[in-house]
């Protein structure tokens, strides 16, 4: 085999192994969710009984509802704050305290969750006396999750803002639009896909978090991951397999849909550009 062919074959096998590593555990989980036996590692026949038990488990469904609510509001708040932060970082020139601001934005990206959760909890307890401040419950989880996910949204939106041709914003100002109008009429529509991506990421991170939620949650606000974690600490629970499969399918459906939509609009775009070239200038 020639040098090029050999390295290409090597490349494909590396990629193949990598993807196998990533996907095999999930696939196995999904397969065993249909296992009739309670022992999740011994196959004893096809059954959907665990899905049935899942649907009847009141506690899990309640926890799911709380998680979805928190995730939704987290994503909304994180997207708004994160986009503001992205504008500050990419568009605003130096102001006193900008370095600290930059540090505050990047640190949460790598901060260990136990530290985030524990420290935030101490703050909430210390401020518990203040009237109107959310006590340890759904509100506190929301605050914690927004703090966690804000930076991720900023990273995604900043990246898009950098790619944006500055002259578009200058042209809008030149035509009479004030800074605020430029943002809402020009910048925002163009970076909208990045905002959607940021929203989805914040939603996912919130939905998935167990450590931080455990620290800041109150007695009546158990999230789904908290419930799952409590169940599986002791080992396999077949119900959880079913839950996992459903979550994977839901996420995959959204992802495939998103990819399909972007691929189609990209194809249409290419077609439009071809059409333009064929016209006489």
């Amino acid at each position, binding site marked *: 085999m020639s040098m090029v062919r050999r390295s290409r074959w090597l490349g494909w096998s590396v990629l193949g192994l990598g993807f196998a590593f990533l996907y095999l555990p999930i696939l196995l989980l999904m397969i065993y969710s249909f296992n009739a036996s309670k022992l999740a590692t011994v196959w004893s026949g096809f059954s959907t009984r665990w899905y049935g038990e899942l649907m009847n488990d009141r506690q899990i469904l309640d926890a799911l509802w709380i998680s979805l609510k928190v995730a939704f509001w987290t994503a909304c708040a994180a997207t708004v704050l994160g986009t503001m932060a992205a504008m500050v970082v990419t568009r605003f020139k130096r102001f006193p305290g900008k370095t600290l601001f930059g540090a505050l934005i990047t640190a949460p990206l790598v901060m260990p969750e136990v530290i985030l959760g524990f420290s935030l909890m101490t703050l909430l307890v210390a401020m518990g006396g203040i009237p109107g401040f959310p006590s340890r419950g759904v509100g506190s989880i929301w605050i914690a999750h927004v703090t966690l996910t804000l930076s991720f949204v900023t990273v995604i939106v900043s990246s898009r803002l950098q790619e944006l041709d500055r002259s578009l914003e200058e042209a809008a100002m030149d035509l009479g639009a004030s800074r605020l109008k430029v943002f809402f009429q020009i910048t925002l529509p163009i970076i909208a896909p990045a905002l959607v991506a940021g929203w989805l990421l914040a939603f996912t991170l919130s939905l998935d978090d167990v450590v931080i939620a455990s620290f800041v949650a109150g007695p009546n606000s158990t999230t789904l991951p908290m419930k799952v974690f409590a169940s599986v600490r002791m080992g*396999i629970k077949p119900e959880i397999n079913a839950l996992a499969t459903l979550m994977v399918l839901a996420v995959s459906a959204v992802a495939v849909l998103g990819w399909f939509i972007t691929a189609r609009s990209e194809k249409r775009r290419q077609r439009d550009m071809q059409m333009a070239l064929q016209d006489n200038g």
Partner: protein
Amino acid sequence: MNAIGWKRWLPGTRSGVIAAPYLWLLLFFAVPFVIILMISFARTQVGSPPYTWLLEYVDGAFSLKLHLGNYAALIQDSQYALAYLSSIKIAVIATLFTLLIGYPMAYVISRMSPAARNVAMMLVVLPSWTSFLIRVYAWIGILDRNGLLNQLLLKIGVIDAPLQILYTPTAAYIGIVYCYLPFMVLPLYANLVKLDNRLLEAAYDLGARPWQAFLKITLPLSRGGIIAGCMLVMIPAVGEFVIPEMLGGPDTLMIGRVLWGEFFNNRDWPTASAVAIVMLALLLVPILLFNRVQQRELEGRLT
């Protein structure tokens, strides 16, 4: 924007845009660190909050009481030191493995056609959109004594008796590499995809072999991506809780578990705070390093 820009905002709007995220992060991210710093110097007490205040008003004057016992305990009890070292060791080794697997993947993907690249990256990122918890849980079924891995190995005759992988540090390594792999591939890919192919062509033209070109050109130029990826994996891995708790055993010492235990089991907030502060101190340099690289990235390499 350029110099003209910001002065022209209505003073309210501009300040508001800066203030909202700034204040949020200051209050909910920075201030908590100050609080746990204070608590780390306090004593435990029964009740709520389960620690004493540092300030005392005695005879008409304030005095600050710093209780160093928590830190002393950390130093005296070797379990803590072991946990810190073990955490760092596990994190570093896991990061290395993640890099060894992730770099080739990122490299191959970055060399594919644009359409194929996007699909491949989506496939890499997709698992991390499904629940982190679920994915760790999946490995329990695989690594168990009666698990699928052992079943496979027994069936093909590689081993005689089932291996004890679950509830050992090895399982924790596998779990960390598995969960953090996308976080290594993403920044590496972002960096490698910007690499100008013509640089390599020029190198080949001048007589370099592919592996030489890789070592002398590709690798050094991808340094930023390597650092970003390693920091993105290593720093949170040091404080990991879920993975060592679910996959590791009693001898998988990690400082994240220690902190959790001090809070949930011992109700000892001052000690937990001290543990957290020391963890932060250890991670300070890597965090600052990451911060510098990331800020430049965020701003698009303006000064």
